[in-house]
Structure formats: C-alpha cells, structure tokens
C-alpha cells in the first residue's frame, strides 16, 4: 500500500474535485449525476400520455382537470456514474527521472488512479481500475463504496510495468467490462501510436474518455550532457547520441509529438492533459475534471 497511499494534503485537495458526466448516467441507485432512469422522484422531468398499466396515483389529476386528458408525471432520478481508470502498464511507463528514481511514470499513474478512486468513492460513483500491457490485463472489478476503494488501492500495489501496449485482441475483455456511458480515464505516457486509436474507439462507442499523459522531467528538459546510449525500454533499440548536440532537435520533435497526440484525441472529443512528474498530482486532475 505504501506506494499508492495518498498523502494527507493531496487527499484534502481532492475533496473539491467532481466527475462531470457528459452522458446521462445509467447506474443503479441514487447518485449525483443526472440519470436516465425515470419514474417517481423529486425532480420533474416530463409529462407523457397515460398508458394502460400506469399506476393511477402517478396520473397528474390537476392537469386532467384542466385538459380532460390523462397525463403521467415523470421525474428524473440522479444516478451514480461508473468510472474506469485504465493504466498503461507498458515498459516505457517505468521511466523515471534521475533526480527522483523511485517516482516512475507508473508510480505517478498508480497515485493518480488512487486519487480518482478516492474522488469516485467520495461522490458515490462506482470505480474500476485496469492495467493494460501486452503481458496481460489486470482488471480490478468495478464497484462502489469505501471498502471497494480500499480493495482497488490494494490491487494497485502488485501492478508492474511489462511489455508493450496490448493488441486489439488482448484488449477485447475491456469492451465487455466497460459499458457504454462509462467515464473512462486513460493514464499513459502517450508514446504508443495505438493509444489514440483505442481512445477514439472508446469515445466513438459512447464512452466518455479523458486522457492523462505523463511526461518525465528529463523528457521535458532533456538535461543530458555528453555521450549516451539511449535504449528504448520496450523494443531494446539503441541510439548513440550526444546529449547537448541533439537537445534542441529532440525538444522540438517531442513537443510536436505531444501536440499531435492532443490534436488526435481532441478530434475524437477526448480531453487530454499532460502532466509532468514534478507537478502536484491534483493539478492535472483538476484540469481534467473541470466542467467544460
């Protein structure tokens, strides 16, 4: 648990955060989101014509007196939201800064996932967490409540980075678990070309998708001097280069790649926020969950 425990100050700052559902929620029970289920309730939704089988007590008799017709009064019910947090567990997520070797991108992703589970639990939504890697999916079931949140936190601990971004076939179980109208938060480093495609498919199938991109400080600043052999953690490819000589070019290409990723995601209506590892974790969450 130690790796994903939320610091107290961070946890207090999470209280102001709210998931905002773009689609009407379909969860069962009472929640904070505008639900699609209608019926008896407090919040008036609409009138509709009486149909045989409707309970007589639901007929609006005052309206009948005015219009001489039977109308049934329908109320909307606020429903809980279903949130899924998908963690990119490919090997590239193990990237960490030399200044803070223990705080890798995946550690940051775990912390953010724990925060999201906390936010969901605070507002009574159900939450599930999955880590995605070509070595296999790890799915924590969706659920709600404080005990479920603790189970999710416990389930984050053994997650490890391994392999690459999973193939379409490997992702198939997700489609069964993640129902439409679900809020999906993808936390990744955004380096895999398959990620925007997958996110676009999620968004196209009526899932509300949010994307959190993690950037290490070394990727942002490229502080390397002298000769290095840069090794890709996923493919093992090696690139011998001189740090200072390629800095400007790398920074330009990296910034262009991030902009291209954000553009692709925005095309699918996906809000994307980049997060550097040296920033406070609640900053990107605040940006991500801000009401449009």
């Amino acid at each position, binding site marked *: 648990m130690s790796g994903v425990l939320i610091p107290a100050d961070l946890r207090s700052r999470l209280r102001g955060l709210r998931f905002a559902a773009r689609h009407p929620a379909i969860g069962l029970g009472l929640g904070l989101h505008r639900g699609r289920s209608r019926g008896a309730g407090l919040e008036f939704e609409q009138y509709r014509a009486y149909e045989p089988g409707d309970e007589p007590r639901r007929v609006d008799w005052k309206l009948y007196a005015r219009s001489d017709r039977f109308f049934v009064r329908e109320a909307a019910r606020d429903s809980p939201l279903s949130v899924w947090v998908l963690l990119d567990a490919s090997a590239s997520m193990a990237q960490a800064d030399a200044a803070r070797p223990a705080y890798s991108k995946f550690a940051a992703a775990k912390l953010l996932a724990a925060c999201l589970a906390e936010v969901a639990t605070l507002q009574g939504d159900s939450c599930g967490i999955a880590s995605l890697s070509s070595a296999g999916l790890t799915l924590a079931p969706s659920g709600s409540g404080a005990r479920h949140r603790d189970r999710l936190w416990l389930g984050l601990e053994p997650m490890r980075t391994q392999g690459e971004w999973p193939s379409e076939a490997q992702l198939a179980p997700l489609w069964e678990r993640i129902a439409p109208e679900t809020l999906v938060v993808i936390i990744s480093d955004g380096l895999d070309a398959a990620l925007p495609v997958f996110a676009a498919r999620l968004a196209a199938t009526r899932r509300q998708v949010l994307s959190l991109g993690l950037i290490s400080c070394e990727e942002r600043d490229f502080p390397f001097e*002298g000769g*290095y052999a840069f*090794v*890709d953690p996923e493919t093992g490819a090696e*690139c011998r*280069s001189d740090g200072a000589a390629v800095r400007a070019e*790398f920074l330009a290409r990296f910034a262009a790649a991030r902009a291209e990723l954000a553009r692709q995601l925005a095309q699918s209506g996906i809000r994307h926020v980049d997060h550097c590892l040296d920033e406070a974790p609640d900053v990107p969450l605040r940006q991500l969950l801000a009401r449009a």
Partner: protein
Amino acid sequence: MIGLLAPAGLAAAAALVVPLVIHLIRRSDRRVLSFAAMRYLRARSNPRARLRLDRPLLLALRLVLLAGLAVLLALPVWRSHAAPAPPWVVVAPGIDALAARTAVRAPLAEWHRLGYGFPALPDGSDAATLAADARLAADPVPLNSLLRQLDHELLPTVALTIVVPETLVGLDAERLQLSHAATWVPLPGRSPAEAATGLARAPPGSELRIAVRYDAAGADELPVVRALGAAWAADGRAIAWDIGASDVPLPPPPAWVFWLGGHVSESLRARARAGEVVLATRLGTSAGEVVLDSPEGAVLRAQVLGRGRLLGVTGALRADALPAVRAPDFPQRLWTVLARPASVPTSAPARSVAPLATTRADWGPAEDLLPALAAVLALLFLLERLVATRRRARPAA
C-alpha cells in the same frame, strides 16, 4: 632568471599524460540510459570521436601541479645577471711583471699573480710584495688548477687575460676549459712548475748510475757505450759507470741497465716492470713502439712492461750494424728517450694548450627557489582537492 640545477628532473613532466588520460577516459565512458522517448532522438555523428575533456578546470589544476612538481625535481634556482666588472690580467709566477705589463695593454684591468690567493701583481716599488712574489714562484701550484679555481670564483662578466710562460709544465690530463672570455698570452719565462716536477729519475746534484753488462758478443758493443758515456759526460751529466760481464750481479735500483748480454732474463724484465730504465741490444724482435728512428729505419723500440718500459735495439749496437749511432746528435737523442719518464707528458708549448671556451653562463649567484615553489605547490594541491571534492551542481547522470 630561473635556472635549473638538475634539468633531468623535467623528465618527470611525462607524468602530465596521466591526468589527461584520466579525464579523457572519463569522458569517453558512455552511459547507458533507458529512455522511453528515444524515438524522437536522432543519432548524432559519433560523438565518441570528439576528444572532450571532463572538468577542464580540475584538469588544468592537476597539470599545473604536476608541471610544478617536475620543476621542483629539477631544482630551480633564481639567478640575477651579474654586474659588469673590470677585466683581470693574471700573470703566471716566473714571468717578469714589467714584461707582462708591456706585453698586455689593459689600462683598466686588475693585475694579479696566478698563484695561491691571487695576490696583486707587484709593480716593482714595494720590496715586501716582491718578496711575496718570489716566494710564490718558489712554491708553485699547478697552473691548470689555479685557472680552474679562478674561472669558478670570478664573476662571469669579467674578461680574463692570462699571461703564461711559453712552455707549460705540470699539466694534467684534461685540457683546460674556461667559461670566461679569456685571452691567452704566452711570454718567455720559466714555468714555475719546472723545478717541482723536473726529471724525477735524475734528481739534480745526485749521480746517475748506469750498469753495463755484456757477454762475448756484447763486448763488441762496448765502444759505442763508452762513446755515449763520453758524449754525455761532455754535456755535463754526472754518471757513475759500472761495466762488467753478464755474470756480475746488477746493482740495486735506482740504476739504469744497459744489457748487452743477449737474452733478457726474467729478473731484468721485473726490473723494467718496476719502472727502471733497461736498455737491451740484439733483441731480435721488432715488437714495440718506435721511440727513436733514423733515416735508415727504427733504432730503438719500447715495449711497455708494467709501470716501465723495456727499451731494445733490434740488432747489435755497433757502428757498422747501426749507422745511426754515428749521427752527432745520437747521444743527445738517446738521452732524451732514456730520461723521459714512462708516464704521460705533462709539459707542452703554451700555444698548443690554450684554454677551450665552454658555454658561457652570464649568471650571478643563485638563489634557491625550492621552498617557495614547494609552498606554491602545496597551495595548488589544496585548491585541487577543493575543486575535486566540490559538490557538483548537476547530477552525474
């Protein structure tokens, strides 16, 4: 100016290579880094080929430190340029002061005797200095030794004029070399060392003994020997002759031996080996260096034996066998050969032994720089340690 007493110590500067190599190796040590965003990197023209030095300030400090240590090993001294000084004229004892003053025109010079302590040259007025000068001439010191001492002691800018007798006696095996600009003026006069070295084998005032031993054939050679004795006696040489048959025992040394008895015995050779003069006739061999020759051929040969020589006539010492003995100067020449010591020559014409000039050093007295340099190096070492152990601003990555 800085001079070095042991320039070979500078070879320690070869150690400068060590920090250079260390700093180069640390640079070429390529670090392997797992970097997820590697796909946006481009390999850049083999940075390994570029010679770059790690931490140049530290390297410079270390190089300076090592160079300073090399200089320290070379024993640096500080020499100031010597002030100009009046020239010196040194006159060897035995040369008349007045003659020297007329021969050498040097109005501003200081005049000195070339003797122990280099006393001033008397100008003929003071009886005491004249007496001291006479004592100097009577108790001579080898001129070469005195000149070397003078060369060492005089300020380097002093020009030297050396007045010496035309024949120098008491020279040693090494040619004189002076670092000063020296003018060599040979003048007629007696070499002061002549009396001291002289002819060791014939001390003046004592009689020279010559033992002549002959056999039957050697009796024919006796007339020549007697003629030689008469010629030498006419020259004023006091000789005690001891002529006898070959079976008569030889006198104890010192005595010259003329052996006219044919075969040279081992006891005779031992005598020659001990340094005695032994002249043998009818040797029958032509071995040895020719020490006396004539238009008809070699007359006398010398075989080196131990400390001395065996002088030998190949044939018989008779006027008919050896026409050279008829020459009027033969006795004189033979005497010269016999009387010459077997050691190296110590006298020479002064003109032929003029001093050679060595590299001239224009330096005054030297001041030791070792403590100052050591202090500077200690400071440098502290600074180097400070820089080397300083916390680096950016991580080693």
